């Protein structure tokens, strides 16, 4: 069991961290979240591998744990001190603008909308699997996805991008 778990972590931790980052918007929190999800899965690992796809199980725990975290009131606070680190080399303005725009929009989504968007679009999971992970009906996933995309269109920068692509 120890070996199987270690292999899974070694193989999938980066992908899990990326998903967690898109959910939390913070690498430190993402690392915490992945550790928390894996720590929950580890004691049941043998059972999970016998009965379920471990990746789906861990992702389900990850999303549920994050949903629990978002219910806490302190989510609105952020550390604020300015750090005199060296500036990055080159002109990164365009990339930063796009990223900041995307981050802002992601933050404006509800936790469930964000989870559906990340799981459906980024992780490219089928609707049925997302529904299983979020404990809801496939119809709910479709509706939530549509609401999330509608919100994205409200953002002028992303709307432009999406419209341009749609044409």
């Amino acid at each position: 069991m120890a070996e199987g778990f270690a292999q899974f972590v070694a193989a999938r931790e980066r992908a899990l961290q990326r998903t967690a980052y898109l959910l939390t918007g913070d690498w430190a929190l993402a690392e915490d979240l992945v550790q928390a999800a894996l720590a929950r899965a580890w004691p049941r690992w043998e059972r999970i591998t016998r009965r379920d796809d471990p990746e789906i199980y861990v992702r389900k725990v990850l999303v549920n744990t994050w949903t629990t975290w978002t219910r806490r009131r302190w989510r609105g606070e952020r550390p604020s001190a300015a750090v005199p680190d060296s500036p990055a080399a080159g002109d990164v303005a365009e990339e930063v603008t796009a990223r900041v725009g995307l981050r802002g929009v992601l933050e404006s989504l509800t936790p469930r909308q964000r989870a559906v968007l990340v799981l459906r679009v980024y992780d490219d999971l089928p609707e049925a699997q997302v529904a299983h992970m979020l404990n809801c009906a496939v119809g709910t996933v479709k509706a939530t996805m549509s609401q999330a995309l509608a919100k994205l269109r409200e953002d002028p920068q992303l709307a432009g991008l999406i419209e341009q692509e749609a044409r």
Partner: protein
Amino acid sequence: MSAVEQQLRDLLIAEAGDPPHRVTAEAVRRRAVRRWVAQAGAVGLAVVLAVGLGAAVTAGVLRTGTSPGGSTGQHIGPPRYYVSQTFDSRARKLVMSVRNRASGRVTAVIRAPLPGESCGQGNVGVAAADDQTFFMTCAVTKWGPGKFGPLSTPLSVKTYIYRFQVTSSGLVSGYSLVRGGVLKGMFADNIAATPDGSELAVEVTGKADTIYTNTLPGGILVINTRTGSRALWKAGPNVPGTLQYAGATDLSFTRDGRELVALEARCHRRGHRVYCNGHAEMQVRGYSPADRGGSLEGGRVLLDDSALKPPGTHLSDAFITPDGSAAAAVLLGCPPHGPCTLTVARIPIGTGGGQRVLYQVQSGSRNAGIFFRFFSADPSRRYLILDAGTSNARVNGWIDHGKLVPLSPADGNAPSYEAW
């Protein structure tokens, strides 16, 4: 997937990039163990699990990693909570609280267990051991009339050392008085703990009527928290013309608790008084075996200013890595022409190897100056906290691959010390 979704996916992929750290199976297991221990609240269970993990590590089942701090311990991620000390100017006292590392939010306030106690006073008044166990010093001082008013002279002091736990949800539980932790007539200025919390080192000053003068400090007490036994490392008799122990800036232990390491100021003396007058020589010295006690004029010199690069750089703070192979140190240097530099570095002990820079801050110009407040680390010495700054910006956070991740709480209070 539609074209819109594909475009969105590309944006998300660009945004996610590559994680800065690896999550290891070992880190996850340790976290799971901590969670179980916290839930069960049973010491016996903790021992069983720790033994199980230890056996697994010995058997080579678990992967090991090397930390920048020089520890051979596992990467377990930075602690989720830390203890922060701030000065409440309205109440005119230090307030100790537990804060969430990511959000800065206060999750618990640490109260003085006894009425009239002041906790966390001194240079370092709180120290962390593994599993979010902390030790803090609290003093009860009786004041009498003096030159500056009716209650301006300390008549007597008694220091109590307490242990408490920060739970997995950031709350404080299990205050208990440490065995051997009642220090009559002594004021504690620095405290450090072994990773397992079995030993404490406390720098103490002596007589109550001289604790705020530059009188020679009493020494460093090593307390066995299981038996309550104590050993004293004390300053030796005055030897005119030599530099002698004048006080410790920071204390630390090697992982096994065998060696006590102190960053000391060494100055000339006159009788029982210390006269540093800005000419203190800073040295990192090791005293072994820590629990035996002895003279602070002995020990072995692990590091001093002469070993630092570039020449003219001075030690501001330092502690030993758990395996004793290196020191994590804060170095300050102001060359005659050019900006001042504060460097956090890992310096190998006794191998002649070069120092490795972990983080660096520079003042804009020599006149702009640079200041250093405090430096601390988690028990693995993997995650370092630094508080320093230039005239333009204050730096407060933990060092992560050459960058400083801010810890400053959202309310903007400047901490006087932080430990995790």
